[in-house]
Protein backbone atom coordinates (compact mmCIF):
# COMPACT_ATOMS: atom_id res chain seq x y z
CA UNK A 1 0.00 0.00 0.00
CA UNK A 2 2.83 2.40 0.84
CA UNK A 3 4.01 2.27 -2.75
CA UNK A 4 0.65 3.60 -3.82
CA UNK A 5 -0.30 6.08 -1.14
CA UNK A 6 3.15 7.64 -1.03
CA UNK A 7 3.35 9.11 -4.52
CA UNK A 8 -0.21 10.34 -4.06
CA UNK A 9 0.67 12.67 -1.18
CA UNK A 10 0.21 16.32 -1.92
CA UNK A 11 3.55 17.68 -3.11
CA UNK A 12 5.63 19.29 -0.37
CA UNK A 13 7.41 22.28 -1.92
CA UNK A 14 10.49 21.61 0.22
CA UNK A 15 10.97 18.13 -1.15
CA UNK A 16 13.41 17.63 -3.99
CA UNK A 17 10.67 15.90 -6.00
CA UNK A 18 8.30 18.87 -5.71
CA UNK A 19 6.82 19.68 -9.08
CA UNK A 20 7.04 16.08 -10.20
CA UNK A 21 3.51 14.89 -10.81
CA UNK A 22 2.32 12.70 -7.94
CA UNK A 23 1.63 9.07 -8.79
CA UNK A 24 3.83 9.39 -11.85
CA UNK A 25 1.26 11.55 -13.71
CA UNK A 26 -1.99 9.92 -12.59
CA UNK A 27 -4.84 12.22 -11.61
CA UNK A 28 -6.67 9.41 -9.82
CA UNK A 29 -8.11 10.54 -6.50
CA UNK A 30 -9.93 7.48 -5.20
CA UNK A 31 -12.47 4.77 -5.84
CA UNK A 32 -16.17 5.47 -6.05
CA UNK A 33 -19.04 3.00 -5.78
CA UNK A 34 -21.16 2.95 -8.91
CA UNK A 35 -24.16 1.75 -6.89
CA UNK A 36 -24.27 3.90 -3.73
CA UNK A 37 -21.73 6.63 -4.48
CA UNK A 38 -19.52 5.82 -1.47
CA UNK A 39 -16.01 7.24 -1.83
CA UNK A 40 -12.95 5.19 -0.96
CA UNK A 41 -9.22 5.68 -1.19
CA UNK A 42 -7.22 3.96 -3.93
CA UNK A 43 -7.36 0.78 -1.89
CA UNK A 44 -7.04 -2.85 -2.84
CA UNK A 45 -10.80 -3.42 -2.88
CA UNK A 46 -13.03 -4.80 -5.61
CA UNK A 47 -16.43 -4.23 -4.03
CA UNK A 48 -17.94 -1.43 -2.00
CA UNK A 49 -17.84 -2.36 1.70
CA UNK A 50 -21.15 -0.53 2.17
CA UNK A 51 -23.24 -2.21 -0.51
CA UNK A 52 -20.91 -4.64 -2.38
CA UNK A 53 -21.43 -2.61 -5.56
CA UNK A 54 -18.72 -2.17 -8.20
CA UNK A 55 -15.96 0.35 -7.54
CA UNK A 56 -14.45 2.51 -10.26
CA UNK A 57 -11.47 4.84 -10.23
CA UNK A 58 -12.31 8.56 -9.96
CA UNK A 59 -10.04 11.32 -11.33
CA UNK A 60 -9.52 15.01 -10.74
CA UNK A 61 -10.25 15.98 -14.33
CA UNK A 62 -9.60 19.66 -13.63
CA UNK A 63 -5.97 18.73 -12.97
CA UNK A 64 -5.43 16.94 -16.30
CA UNK A 65 -2.79 18.78 -18.35
CA UNK A 66 -2.59 16.70 -21.51
CA UNK A 67 -4.75 17.31 -24.53
CA UNK A 68 -6.39 14.75 -26.78
CA UNK A 69 -3.01 13.21 -27.62
CA UNK A 70 -2.23 12.65 -23.96
CA UNK A 71 1.13 13.41 -22.35
CA UNK A 72 3.54 14.99 -24.80
CA UNK A 73 6.57 12.82 -25.42
CA UNK A 74 4.96 9.65 -24.09
CA UNK A 75 3.87 6.77 -26.30
CA UNK A 76 1.30 3.96 -26.25
CA UNK A 77 -0.86 3.57 -23.16
CA UNK A 78 1.56 5.76 -21.20
CA UNK A 79 0.26 8.75 -23.17
CA UNK A 80 -2.89 8.49 -21.06
CA UNK A 81 -1.24 7.89 -17.68
CA UNK A 82 -3.10 10.91 -16.27
CA UNK A 83 -6.35 8.97 -16.71
CA UNK A 84 -5.01 5.64 -15.47
CA UNK A 85 -4.23 4.37 -11.95
CA UNK A 86 -1.05 5.75 -10.37
CA UNK A 87 2.29 4.01 -10.88
CA UNK A 88 5.76 5.32 -10.17
CA UNK A 89 7.03 4.97 -13.74
CA UNK A 90 4.15 5.06 -16.23
CA UNK A 91 6.43 5.06 -19.26
CA UNK A 92 7.67 1.65 -18.23
CA UNK A 93 4.54 0.22 -16.59
CA UNK A 94 2.24 1.34 -19.42
CA UNK A 95 4.64 0.56 -22.28
CA UNK A 96 2.10 -0.97 -24.65
CA UNK A 97 1.85 0.50 -28.11
CA UNK A 98 -1.48 1.83 -29.31
CA UNK A 99 -3.33 0.25 -32.23
CA UNK A 100 -4.55 1.51 -35.61
CA UNK A 101 -8.00 2.84 -36.36
CA UNK A 102 -8.59 1.49 -39.86
CA UNK A 103 -10.91 2.97 -42.42
CA UNK A 104 -13.04 0.11 -43.83
CA UNK A 105 -14.60 1.43 -47.05
CA UNK A 106 -15.37 -1.92 -48.70
CA UNK A 107 -17.20 -3.33 -45.68
CA UNK A 108 -18.97 0.02 -45.15
CA UNK A 109 -20.20 -0.01 -48.75
CA UNK A 110 -21.43 -3.59 -48.54
CA UNK A 111 -23.32 -2.88 -45.32
CA UNK A 112 -24.63 0.56 -46.32
CA UNK A 113 -22.91 2.45 -43.50
CA UNK A 114 -21.66 5.97 -44.22
CA UNK A 115 -18.18 5.63 -42.80
CA UNK A 116 -16.82 2.67 -40.87
CA UNK A 117 -13.68 2.64 -38.74
CA UNK A 118 -12.25 -0.50 -37.17
CA UNK A 119 -10.35 -0.23 -33.90
CA UNK A 120 -7.90 -3.02 -34.64
CA UNK A 121 -6.74 -4.51 -31.34
CA UNK A 122 -5.91 -7.79 -33.08
CA UNK A 123 -2.38 -6.42 -33.51
CA UNK A 124 -1.66 -6.22 -29.78
CA UNK A 125 1.15 -8.51 -28.55
CA UNK A 126 -1.03 -11.44 -27.48
CA UNK A 127 -3.68 -10.90 -30.15
CA UNK A 128 -6.45 -9.33 -28.09
CA UNK A 129 -7.47 -6.07 -26.42
CA UNK A 130 -6.90 -7.79 -23.06
CA UNK A 131 -3.28 -6.64 -23.23
CA UNK A 132 -4.66 -3.22 -22.23
CA UNK A 133 -6.39 -4.10 -18.94
CA UNK A 134 -3.74 -6.72 -18.10
CA UNK A 135 -0.95 -4.14 -18.43
CA UNK A 136 -2.73 -1.73 -16.09
CA UNK A 137 -3.72 -4.37 -13.52
CA UNK A 138 -0.29 -6.01 -13.39
CA UNK A 139 1.31 -2.59 -12.91
CA UNK A 140 -0.94 -2.13 -9.84
CA UNK A 141 -0.21 -5.64 -8.57
CA UNK A 142 3.53 -5.01 -8.77
CA UNK A 143 3.26 -1.54 -7.22
CA UNK A 144 1.37 -3.11 -4.31
CA UNK A 145 3.95 -5.84 -3.80
CA UNK A 146 2.21 -8.89 -5.27
CA UNK A 147 4.41 -11.96 -5.57
CA UNK A 148 2.20 -13.82 -8.03
CA UNK A 149 -0.35 -12.72 -10.62
CA UNK A 150 -3.55 -14.55 -11.61
CA UNK A 151 -6.64 -14.23 -13.75
CA UNK A 152 -9.89 -15.98 -14.61
CA UNK A 153 -10.15 -16.05 -18.38
CA UNK A 154 -12.41 -17.17 -21.19
CA UNK A 155 -9.12 -17.47 -23.12
CA UNK A 156 -7.69 -14.13 -24.15
CA UNK A 157 -6.98 -12.60 -20.78
CA UNK A 158 -4.85 -15.68 -20.04
CA UNK A 159 -2.08 -14.85 -22.50
CA UNK A 160 -2.33 -11.12 -21.80
CA UNK A 161 -1.83 -11.75 -18.07
CA UNK A 162 1.02 -14.18 -18.67
CA UNK A 163 2.73 -11.60 -20.86
CA UNK A 164 2.36 -8.69 -18.46
CA UNK A 165 3.52 -10.87 -15.54
CA UNK A 166 6.53 -12.13 -17.53
CA UNK A 167 7.68 -8.55 -18.11
CA UNK A 168 7.69 -8.03 -14.36
CA UNK A 169 9.33 -11.35 -13.53
CA UNK A 170 6.28 -12.58 -11.65
CA UNK A 171 4.69 -16.03 -11.99
CA UNK A 172 1.22 -16.08 -13.58
CA UNK A 173 -1.54 -18.55 -12.73
CA UNK A 174 -4.25 -18.40 -15.35
CA UNK A 175 -7.59 -20.04 -14.54
CA UNK A 176 -9.45 -21.18 -17.65
CA UNK A 177 -12.38 -23.42 -18.50
CA UNK A 178 -11.42 -26.87 -19.74
CA UNK A 179 -10.94 -27.42 -23.45
CA UNK A 180 -9.69 -24.10 -24.86
CA UNK A 181 -8.06 -24.11 -28.32
CA UNK A 182 -4.28 -24.05 -28.78
CA UNK A 183 -4.44 -20.44 -29.99
CA UNK A 184 -5.47 -19.44 -26.48
CA UNK A 185 -3.19 -21.76 -24.50
CA UNK A 186 0.05 -22.05 -26.50
CA UNK A 187 0.96 -18.38 -25.96
CA UNK A 188 0.39 -18.84 -22.21
CA UNK A 189 2.82 -21.75 -22.14
CA UNK A 190 5.41 -19.88 -24.19
CA UNK A 191 5.11 -16.89 -21.87
CA UNK A 192 5.73 -19.10 -18.85
CA UNK A 193 2.21 -18.95 -17.42
CA UNK A 194 0.80 -21.82 -15.36
CA UNK A 195 -2.52 -23.02 -16.74
CA UNK A 196 -5.15 -23.99 -14.16
CA UNK A 197 -8.14 -25.72 -15.76
CA UNK A 198 -11.58 -25.92 -14.20
CA UNK A 199 -14.13 -28.34 -15.68
CA UNK A 200 -17.36 -26.68 -16.78
CA UNK A 201 -17.81 -23.24 -18.29
CA UNK A 202 -16.24 -19.88 -17.53
CA UNK A 203 -18.61 -18.96 -14.70
CA UNK A 204 -17.42 -21.97 -12.73
CA UNK A 205 -13.80 -21.04 -13.46
CA UNK A 206 -14.49 -17.52 -12.29
CA UNK A 207 -16.05 -18.61 -9.01
CA UNK A 208 -13.18 -20.99 -8.27
CA UNK A 209 -10.71 -18.20 -9.07
CA UNK A 210 -12.59 -15.89 -6.66
CA UNK A 211 -12.16 -18.54 -3.95
CA UNK A 212 -8.48 -18.91 -4.87
CA UNK A 213 -8.07 -15.15 -4.59
CA UNK A 214 -9.31 -15.38 -0.99
CA UNK A 215 -7.22 -18.44 -0.12
CA UNK A 216 -3.90 -17.81 -1.87
CA UNK A 217 -1.44 -14.97 -2.23
CA UNK A 218 -2.22 -14.43 -5.88
CA UNK A 219 -3.23 -11.01 -7.23
CA UNK A 220 -6.03 -11.80 -9.68
CA UNK A 221 -6.15 -9.02 -12.24
CA UNK A 222 -9.88 -9.23 -12.90
CA UNK A 223 -10.98 -10.12 -9.36
CA UNK A 224 -9.09 -8.38 -6.54
CA UNK A 225 -7.70 -5.71 -8.88
CA UNK A 226 -10.86 -5.37 -10.96
CA UNK A 227 -11.40 -1.58 -10.52
CA UNK A 228 -7.85 -0.96 -11.79
CA UNK A 229 -7.99 -3.66 -14.46
CA UNK A 230 -11.12 -2.12 -15.98
CA UNK A 231 -9.36 1.23 -16.44
CA UNK A 232 -7.00 -0.24 -19.04
CA UNK A 233 -9.86 -0.78 -21.46
CA UNK A 234 -10.59 2.97 -21.59
CA UNK A 235 -7.43 3.57 -23.60
CA UNK A 236 -8.89 2.21 -26.86
CA UNK A 237 -11.36 5.12 -26.87
CA UNK A 238 -8.70 7.74 -26.13
CA UNK A 239 -6.70 6.46 -29.11
CA UNK A 240 -9.78 6.35 -31.33
CA UNK A 241 -10.78 9.91 -30.50
CA UNK A 242 -7.25 11.14 -31.15
CA UNK A 243 -7.13 9.31 -34.50
CA UNK A 244 -10.43 10.98 -35.46
CA UNK A 245 -9.06 14.42 -34.59
CA UNK A 246 -11.67 14.82 -31.86
CA UNK A 247 -14.66 14.20 -34.15
CA UNK A 248 -16.63 11.63 -32.13
CA UNK A 249 -18.46 9.00 -34.19
CA UNK A 250 -22.23 8.54 -34.10
CA UNK A 251 -22.00 4.92 -32.91
CA UNK A 252 -19.45 2.69 -31.21
CA UNK A 253 -19.97 -1.07 -31.48
CA UNK A 254 -18.36 -3.13 -28.72
CA UNK A 255 -18.47 -6.86 -27.93
CA UNK A 256 -19.77 -7.85 -24.50
CA UNK A 257 -18.33 -10.58 -22.30
CA UNK A 258 -18.30 -9.41 -18.70
CA UNK A 259 -19.29 -5.98 -20.00
CA UNK A 260 -16.08 -4.36 -18.70
CA UNK A 261 -14.88 -3.04 -22.09
CA UNK A 262 -18.20 -1.41 -22.89
CA UNK A 263 -18.57 0.08 -19.40
CA UNK A 264 -15.00 1.42 -19.60
CA UNK A 265 -15.70 2.89 -23.05
CA UNK A 266 -18.70 4.70 -21.59
CA UNK A 267 -16.60 6.16 -18.77
CA UNK A 268 -13.85 7.16 -21.22
CA UNK A 269 -16.36 8.95 -23.49
CA UNK A 270 -17.71 10.88 -20.50
CA UNK A 271 -14.19 11.82 -19.36
CA UNK A 272 -13.12 13.03 -22.80
CA UNK A 273 -16.33 15.04 -23.14
CA UNK A 274 -15.72 16.68 -19.77
CA UNK A 275 -12.10 17.39 -20.73
CA UNK A 276 -13.15 19.09 -23.95
CA UNK A 277 -11.24 16.55 -26.05
CA UNK A 278 -14.36 15.96 -28.17
CA UNK A 279 -14.85 18.68 -30.79
CA UNK A 280 -17.84 20.93 -30.17
CA UNK A 281 -20.70 20.01 -32.47
CA UNK A 282 -19.64 16.39 -32.93
CA UNK A 283 -22.19 13.79 -31.86
CA UNK A 284 -22.41 12.10 -28.48
CA UNK A 285 -21.68 8.52 -29.52
CA UNK A 286 -24.32 5.87 -28.88
CA UNK A 287 -22.85 2.67 -27.44
CA UNK A 288 -23.91 -0.59 -29.06
CA UNK A 289 -23.27 -3.86 -27.22
CA UNK A 290 -22.94 -7.11 -29.13
CA UNK A 291 -23.23 -10.54 -27.57
CA UNK A 292 -23.67 -13.91 -29.28
CA UNK A 293 -27.15 -15.44 -29.24
CA UNK A 294 -25.90 -18.45 -27.27
CA UNK A 295 -24.91 -16.22 -24.34
CA UNK A 296 -26.80 -12.93 -24.33
CA UNK A 297 -27.82 -12.03 -20.75
CA UNK A 298 -26.98 -8.32 -21.16
CA UNK A 299 -28.75 -8.03 -24.52
CA UNK A 300 -31.80 -9.81 -23.11
CA UNK A 301 -32.00 -7.45 -20.14
CA UNK A 302 -31.73 -4.48 -22.52
CA UNK A 303 -34.52 -5.80 -24.77
CA UNK A 304 -36.84 -6.44 -21.87
CA UNK A 305 -36.05 -3.12 -20.21
CA UNK A 306 -34.80 -4.83 -17.06
CA UNK A 307 -32.15 -3.27 -14.83
CA UNK A 308 -31.08 -6.59 -13.36
CA UNK A 309 -29.40 -9.26 -15.42
CA UNK A 310 -30.55 -12.87 -15.35
CA UNK A 311 -27.53 -15.11 -15.77
CA UNK A 312 -27.34 -17.73 -18.52
CA UNK A 313 -26.66 -21.10 -16.99
CA UNK A 314 -25.11 -22.84 -19.97
CA UNK A 315 -23.60 -20.50 -22.53
CA UNK A 316 -23.34 -22.07 -25.98
CA UNK A 317 -21.89 -21.18 -29.32
CA UNK A 318 -18.81 -20.41 -31.33
CA UNK A 319 -17.86 -17.19 -29.49
CA UNK A 320 -16.11 -18.79 -26.52
CA UNK A 321 -14.35 -15.58 -25.53
CA UNK A 322 -17.75 -13.97 -24.89
CA UNK A 323 -19.28 -16.97 -23.12
CA UNK A 324 -19.79 -15.33 -19.73
CA UNK A 325 -23.21 -16.32 -18.41
CA UNK A 326 -23.00 -14.11 -15.32
CA UNK A 327 -21.32 -10.88 -16.44
CA UNK A 328 -19.72 -9.05 -13.52
CA UNK A 329 -19.86 -5.66 -15.23
CA UNK A 330 -23.18 -6.36 -16.93
CA UNK A 331 -25.23 -3.85 -14.91
CA UNK A 332 -22.71 -1.07 -15.61
CA UNK A 333 -22.62 -1.96 -19.30
CA UNK A 334 -26.40 -1.97 -19.44
CA UNK A 335 -26.57 1.49 -17.84
CA UNK A 336 -23.90 2.84 -20.20
CA UNK A 337 -25.79 1.58 -23.27
CA UNK A 338 -29.08 3.08 -22.10
CA UNK A 339 -27.54 6.40 -21.00
CA UNK A 340 -25.89 6.87 -24.40
CA UNK A 341 -29.05 6.17 -26.39
CA UNK A 342 -27.48 3.00 -27.76
CA UNK A 343 -28.76 -0.49 -28.28
CA UNK A 344 -27.81 -4.15 -27.85
CA UNK A 345 -27.84 -6.99 -30.33
CA UNK A 346 -27.27 -10.75 -30.36
CA UNK A 347 -26.45 -12.43 -33.69
CA UNK A 348 -26.58 -16.18 -34.25
CA UNK A 349 -23.53 -18.42 -34.64
CA UNK A 350 -24.10 -18.55 -38.39
CA UNK A 351 -24.07 -14.76 -38.55
CA UNK A 352 -20.95 -14.62 -36.37
CA UNK A 353 -19.10 -17.01 -38.70
CA UNK A 354 -20.26 -15.06 -41.75
CA UNK A 355 -19.06 -11.88 -40.01
CA UNK A 356 -15.57 -13.36 -39.71
CA UNK A 357 -15.58 -14.23 -43.43
CA UNK A 358 -17.03 -10.86 -44.53
CA UNK A 359 -14.36 -8.92 -42.69
CA UNK A 360 -11.57 -11.12 -44.03
CA UNK A 361 -12.90 -11.00 -47.59
CA UNK A 362 -13.53 -7.25 -47.70
CA UNK A 363 -10.91 -5.73 -45.42
CA UNK A 364 -8.23 -8.40 -45.08
CA UNK A 365 -8.49 -8.67 -41.29
CA UNK A 366 -8.81 -12.08 -39.63
CA UNK A 367 -10.66 -11.99 -36.31
CA UNK A 368 -11.76 -14.50 -33.72
CA UNK A 369 -15.51 -14.84 -33.07
CA UNK A 370 -15.74 -11.75 -30.84
CA UNK A 371 -14.91 -9.76 -33.98
CA UNK A 372 -17.33 -11.82 -36.06
CA UNK A 373 -20.03 -11.01 -33.50
CA UNK A 374 -19.39 -7.28 -33.91
CA UNK A 375 -19.38 -7.46 -37.73
CA UNK A 376 -22.61 -9.47 -37.63
CA UNK A 377 -24.16 -6.78 -35.45
CA UNK A 378 -23.04 -4.11 -37.92
CA UNK A 379 -24.89 -5.96 -40.67
CA UNK A 380 -28.01 -6.52 -38.59
CA UNK A 381 -28.21 -2.92 -37.36
CA UNK A 382 -27.53 -1.47 -40.80
CA UNK A 383 -30.53 -3.51 -41.95
CA UNK A 384 -32.70 -2.43 -39.00
CA UNK A 385 -31.81 1.24 -39.57
CA UNK A 386 -30.02 1.80 -36.26
CA UNK A 387 -26.84 2.35 -38.28
CA UNK A 388 -27.78 4.92 -40.90
CA UNK A 389 -26.21 5.65 -44.28
CA UNK A 390 -24.89 8.99 -43.01
CA UNK A 391 -23.41 7.59 -39.78
CA UNK A 392 -19.77 7.44 -38.80
CA UNK A 393 -19.34 4.17 -36.92
CA UNK A 394 -16.44 2.78 -34.88
CA UNK A 395 -16.37 -1.00 -34.37
CA UNK A 396 -14.02 -2.77 -31.97
CA UNK A 397 -12.08 -5.77 -33.27
CA UNK A 398 -10.93 -7.22 -29.98
CA UNK A 399 -9.30 -10.53 -30.89
CA UNK A 400 -7.18 -11.96 -33.70
CA UNK A 401 -8.29 -14.91 -35.82
CA UNK A 402 -5.35 -17.08 -34.80
CA UNK A 403 -6.64 -17.15 -31.22
CA UNK A 404 -9.53 -19.40 -32.30
CA UNK A 405 -8.73 -21.05 -35.63
CA UNK A 406 -11.51 -22.99 -37.31
CA UNK A 407 -14.23 -20.52 -36.30
CA UNK A 408 -15.05 -19.10 -39.71
CA UNK A 409 -17.43 -21.82 -40.68
CA UNK A 410 -17.88 -24.43 -43.35
CA UNK A 411 -14.56 -25.87 -44.42
CA UNK A 412 -13.08 -24.03 -47.36
CA UNK A 413 -12.60 -25.98 -50.60
CA UNK A 414 -9.79 -28.54 -50.30
CA UNK A 415 -6.48 -27.55 -51.93
CA UNK A 416 -6.13 -28.19 -55.66
CA UNK A 417 -3.59 -30.92 -56.41
CA UNK A 418 -1.15 -30.64 -59.27
CA UNK A 419 0.97 -33.41 -60.74
CA UNK A 420 4.63 -32.48 -60.13
CA UNK A 421 5.67 -33.69 -63.62
CA UNK A 422 2.68 -33.05 -65.92
CA UNK A 423 0.62 -30.34 -64.21
CA UNK A 424 -2.87 -29.94 -65.66
CA UNK A 425 -3.85 -26.28 -65.30
CA UNK A 426 -7.36 -26.61 -66.66
CA UNK A 427 -9.03 -26.67 -63.21
CA UNK A 428 -7.07 -23.62 -62.12
CA UNK A 429 -8.00 -21.83 -65.35
CA UNK A 430 -11.67 -22.59 -64.75
CA UNK A 431 -11.43 -21.06 -61.26
CA UNK A 432 -9.69 -17.99 -62.59
CA UNK A 433 -12.41 -17.51 -65.17
CA UNK A 434 -15.03 -17.60 -62.45
CA UNK A 435 -13.42 -14.52 -60.86
CA UNK A 436 -14.38 -10.92 -61.69
CA UNK A 437 -13.50 -9.35 -65.03
CA UNK A 438 -9.97 -7.94 -65.31
CA UNK A 439 -9.67 -4.12 -65.30
CA UNK A 440 -10.78 -2.42 -68.52
CA UNK A 441 -8.09 -2.67 -71.17
CA UNK A 442 -6.71 -5.75 -69.42
CA UNK A 443 -3.65 -5.92 -67.25
CA UNK A 444 -0.11 -6.02 -68.62
CA UNK A 445 1.00 -9.65 -68.43
CA UNK A 446 2.22 -12.23 -69.03
CA UNK A 447 2.97 -12.12 -65.32
Amino acid at each position, binding site marked *: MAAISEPLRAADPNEPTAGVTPGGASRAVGLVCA*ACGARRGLAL*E*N*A*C*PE*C*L*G*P*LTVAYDLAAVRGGRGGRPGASGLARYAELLPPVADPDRAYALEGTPLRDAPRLARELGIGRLYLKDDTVLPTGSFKDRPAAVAVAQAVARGARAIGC*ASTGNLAAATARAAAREGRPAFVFVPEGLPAGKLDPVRALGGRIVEVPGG*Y*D*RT*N*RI*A*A*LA*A*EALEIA*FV*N*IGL*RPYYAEGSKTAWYETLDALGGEAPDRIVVPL*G*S*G*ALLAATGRAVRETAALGWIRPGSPVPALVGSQPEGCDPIVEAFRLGRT*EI*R*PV*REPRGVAESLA*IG*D*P*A*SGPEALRAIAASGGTADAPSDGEVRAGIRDLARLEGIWVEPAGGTVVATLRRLARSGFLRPQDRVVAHLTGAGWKAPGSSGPRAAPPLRLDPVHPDFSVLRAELDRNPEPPAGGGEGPW
Partner: protein
Amino acid sequence: MRVHLASVLRTFAPGLDGREFPGAEGSVAELLERVAAAGPVGFRARLFEGAALRRYLAVYIDGVDIRFTGGLASRVGGDSRVDLIPAVAGG
Protein backbone atom coordinates in the same frame (compact mmCIF):
# COMPACT_ATOMS: atom_id res chain seq x y z
CA MET B 1 -23.90 -26.20 6.39
CA ARG B 2 -20.55 -24.50 6.18
CA VAL B 3 -20.50 -20.83 5.24
CA HIS B 4 -17.60 -19.09 3.49
CA LEU B 5 -17.42 -15.29 3.34
CA ALA B 6 -15.46 -13.18 0.87
CA SER B 7 -12.99 -10.87 2.61
CA VAL B 8 -15.13 -7.74 2.07
CA LEU B 9 -17.78 -9.40 4.30
CA ARG B 10 -15.30 -11.07 6.62
CA THR B 11 -14.04 -7.70 7.86
CA PHE B 12 -17.51 -6.97 9.28
CA ALA B 13 -17.92 -10.38 10.91
CA PRO B 14 -14.53 -11.73 11.89
CA GLY B 15 -14.75 -15.37 12.86
CA LEU B 16 -17.81 -16.16 10.74
CA ASP B 17 -15.86 -17.36 7.72
CA GLY B 18 -15.78 -21.13 7.53
CA ARG B 19 -18.31 -21.43 10.40
CA GLU B 20 -20.40 -24.58 10.54
CA PHE B 21 -24.14 -24.07 11.04
CA PRO B 22 -25.40 -27.43 12.17
CA GLY B 23 -28.91 -28.45 11.28
CA ALA B 24 -31.07 -30.26 8.81
CA GLU B 25 -32.13 -29.03 5.38
CA GLY B 26 -33.67 -25.57 5.17
CA SER B 27 -34.02 -22.59 2.90
CA VAL B 28 -31.22 -20.19 2.01
CA ALA B 29 -33.24 -17.41 3.63
CA GLU B 30 -33.34 -19.30 6.94
CA LEU B 31 -29.65 -20.07 6.77
CA LEU B 32 -28.67 -16.48 5.98
CA GLU B 33 -30.83 -15.20 8.85
CA ARG B 34 -28.86 -17.52 11.15
CA VAL B 35 -25.58 -16.25 9.67
CA ALA B 36 -26.76 -12.64 10.13
CA ALA B 37 -27.75 -13.31 13.73
CA ALA B 38 -24.35 -14.87 14.43
CA GLY B 39 -22.60 -11.70 13.21
CA PRO B 40 -22.31 -8.34 14.98
CA VAL B 41 -25.09 -5.74 15.15
CA GLY B 42 -25.74 -4.36 11.68
CA PHE B 43 -24.31 -7.37 9.87
CA ARG B 44 -27.74 -8.39 8.58
CA ALA B 45 -27.83 -5.24 6.45
CA ARG B 46 -24.69 -6.45 4.67
CA LEU B 47 -26.63 -9.46 3.42
CA PHE B 48 -30.22 -8.28 3.10
CA GLU B 49 -32.16 -5.26 1.90
CA GLY B 50 -35.35 -5.79 3.87
CA ALA B 51 -36.45 -9.32 3.08
CA ALA B 52 -34.52 -9.48 -0.21
CA LEU B 53 -30.94 -10.44 -0.81
CA ARG B 54 -28.60 -7.49 -1.42
CA ARG B 55 -28.39 -6.78 -5.12
CA TYR B 56 -24.62 -7.21 -5.43
CA LEU B 57 -24.30 -10.29 -3.21
CA ALA B 58 -23.89 -13.64 -4.97
CA VAL B 59 -24.76 -16.80 -3.08
CA TYR B 60 -23.61 -20.24 -4.18
CA ILE B 61 -24.73 -23.56 -2.76
CA ASP B 62 -22.22 -26.27 -3.59
CA GLY B 63 -21.00 -24.14 -6.46
CA VAL B 64 -24.41 -23.35 -7.94
CA ASP B 65 -25.69 -19.77 -8.05
CA ILE B 66 -29.00 -19.63 -6.13
CA ARG B 67 -30.51 -17.57 -8.95
CA PHE B 68 -30.67 -20.88 -10.84
CA THR B 69 -32.30 -22.78 -8.01
CA GLY B 70 -35.06 -20.55 -6.67
CA GLY B 71 -33.23 -17.69 -4.94
CA LEU B 72 -33.72 -17.35 -1.19
CA ALA B 73 -36.23 -20.22 -1.26
CA SER B 74 -33.55 -22.64 -2.54
CA ARG B 75 -32.92 -25.61 -0.27
CA VAL B 76 -29.62 -26.06 1.55
CA GLY B 77 -28.66 -29.53 2.72
CA GLY B 78 -27.02 -30.29 6.06
CA ASP B 79 -23.59 -30.83 4.49
CA SER B 80 -23.73 -28.07 1.87
CA ARG B 81 -21.03 -25.51 1.29
CA VAL B 82 -22.40 -21.97 0.98
CA ASP B 83 -20.24 -19.18 -0.50
CA LEU B 84 -21.07 -15.48 -0.15
CA ILE B 85 -19.14 -13.46 -2.75
CA PRO B 86 -19.60 -9.97 -4.19
CA ALA B 87 -21.22 -10.33 -7.60
CA VAL B 88 -18.62 -8.02 -9.12
CA ALA B 89 -15.72 -10.36 -8.34
CA GLY B 90 -14.40 -11.31 -11.72
CA GLY B 91 -15.60 -12.02 -15.22
